[in-house]
């Protein structure tokens, strides 16, 4: 099977008058169709930059990104629902921009609103939704464009812990059931293990791939929440944690690095 996405020796730096900051260095990986890849790493390791590159918002300085005839949808860290639009007008924003507001697509969006429990809020203002509902609306906005690859940039980090678990479980299942290819960026290791088929561990800046860890569970088809209750979960969590910890020592274990490690 051919990979849907290939990153070949990607490097990227940010430039300012004060100098150059290398964000990513020599990143190589492939993603298969229908696969859920989680990317973890300390803050500032270029995780979000990687998604912007895949989405095509920025160009890599060197290396190539091949997206084989697939469209890419990007879900940002915050929901960014536009307050001056109703929930319905927010979820159809992408369709509106791409001039795809056909009756079939409208029907599809209405169906999604129904499936994800937002049907009664379609005429409401975004401020009337709870944090979890807002995130679901943001997901519908992304899914409405029927992307083949879904990029998720810490999509749950703005939620409180309980909602975060629920929405993570919710959205993880939605993506799996829809058979979408997804790349999730997170600094939450348990989130990565509970949702991913593979976890890519990035080093501290400049981000390089330290390890790619396949995640398999004895029992198949577990939801993210169910995965959290297995013994494999804890073993994977510890392995990834050790990988990241080793990183801190490698770069000289400054206090900043260790502080970041604790929050991970």
């Amino acid at each position: 099977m051919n990979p849907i996405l290939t990153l070949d020796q990607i490097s990227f730096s940010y430039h300012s008058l004060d100098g150059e900051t290398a964000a990513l260095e020599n990143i190589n990986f492939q993603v298969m169709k229908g696969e859920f890849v989680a990317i973890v790493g300390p803050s500032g390791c270029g995780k979000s930059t990687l998604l912007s590159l895949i989405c095509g918002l920025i160009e890599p300085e060197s290396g190539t990104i091949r997206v084989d005839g697939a469209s890419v949808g990007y879900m940002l860290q915050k929901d960014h629902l536009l307050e001056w639009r109703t929930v319905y007008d927010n979820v159809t924003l992408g369709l509106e921009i791409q001039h795809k507001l056909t009756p079939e697509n409208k029907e599809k969006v209405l169906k999604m609103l129904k499936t994800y429990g937002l049907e009664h809020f379609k005429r409401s203002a975004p401020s009337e939704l709870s944090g979890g509902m807002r995130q679901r609306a943001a997901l519908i906005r992304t899914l409405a464009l029927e992307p083949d690859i879904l990029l998720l940039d810490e999509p749950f980090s703005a939620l409180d812990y309980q909602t975060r678990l629920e929405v993570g479980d919710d959205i993880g299942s939605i993506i799996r059931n829809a058979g979408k290819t997804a790349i999730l960026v997170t600094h939450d290791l348990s989130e990565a293990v509970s949702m991913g088929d593979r976890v890519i561990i990035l080093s501290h800046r400049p981000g390089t791939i330290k390890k790619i860890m396949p995640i398999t569970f004895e029992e198949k088809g577990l939801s993210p929440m169910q995965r959290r209750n297995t013994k494999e979960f804890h073993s994977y969590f510890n392995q990834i944690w050790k990988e990241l910890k080793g990183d801190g020592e490698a770069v000289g274990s400054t206090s900043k690095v260790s502080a970041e490690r604790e929050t991970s």
Partner: protein
Amino acid sequence: MEKLSAAQAKFLLKEKRHKQKVFFLRILILILFIAVWEAAARGGLINDFIFSSPSRIGSLFLTMAKDGSIFYHIGVTLMETVASFLLVTVLGLLLAILLWSNKGISETLEPYLVVLNSLPKSALAPVLIVWLGNNLKTIIVVGIIIAVFGSIITLTTGFLGVDQDKIKLIYTLGGKKKDVLSKVLVPSSIPIIISTMKVNIGLCLVGIIIGEFLAANKGLGYLIIYGSQVFKMDLVMLSIIVLCVLSAILYYFITMLEKKVKKKF
């Protein structure tokens, strides 16, 4: 409706009393001012030929209302103000969008804008009369230049302050710069656009009066200058009072617009 608790009812009553008191005091100040002015003029404390008096202003208003001349002058000033206000709003928005969309242009023009904005624009009015002539066009242009530079600067600053992530959102959805403009930039800047309009309506009126001082044979500014030259202080005072009322009404309209829009944004 739910029944109010005793404490809530008491609170509401207190608030209502307070509002009534403020309203009463406001009216009282106005009445006292008029009464003292009138009494001082009649008692000979002030010379009513120089300071005029409320009764003289009132009777002049009645005379001018009967032959319609006061409404003619109000109409002229109002039309000029509204015209320059609309032009300032459109020009300010268009130029601010241009400056937002092109970093090169905005950085190049910045020092010129700052200088033009801090320049006392009334200094340009005599130049404009020479260039454009002694006519309506000049007056409206004076109204425009007084307000337009400030609004370009305020609007551009507002545009540049729009949440970068919301702009990123539009790009992730496959949008272009024009989508950013119509879907995020303008809607999220509505409050700042309205507050700029609030400032502009007053500034335009200032510009129009300055213009009328210099280059008009009609309008309230003309009446003030004409009145002072021929020592008809009643006419000057009447025009100033009408001007007060006019500016209050114009401001009120923008506030109404703001209330209407605020519900949505």
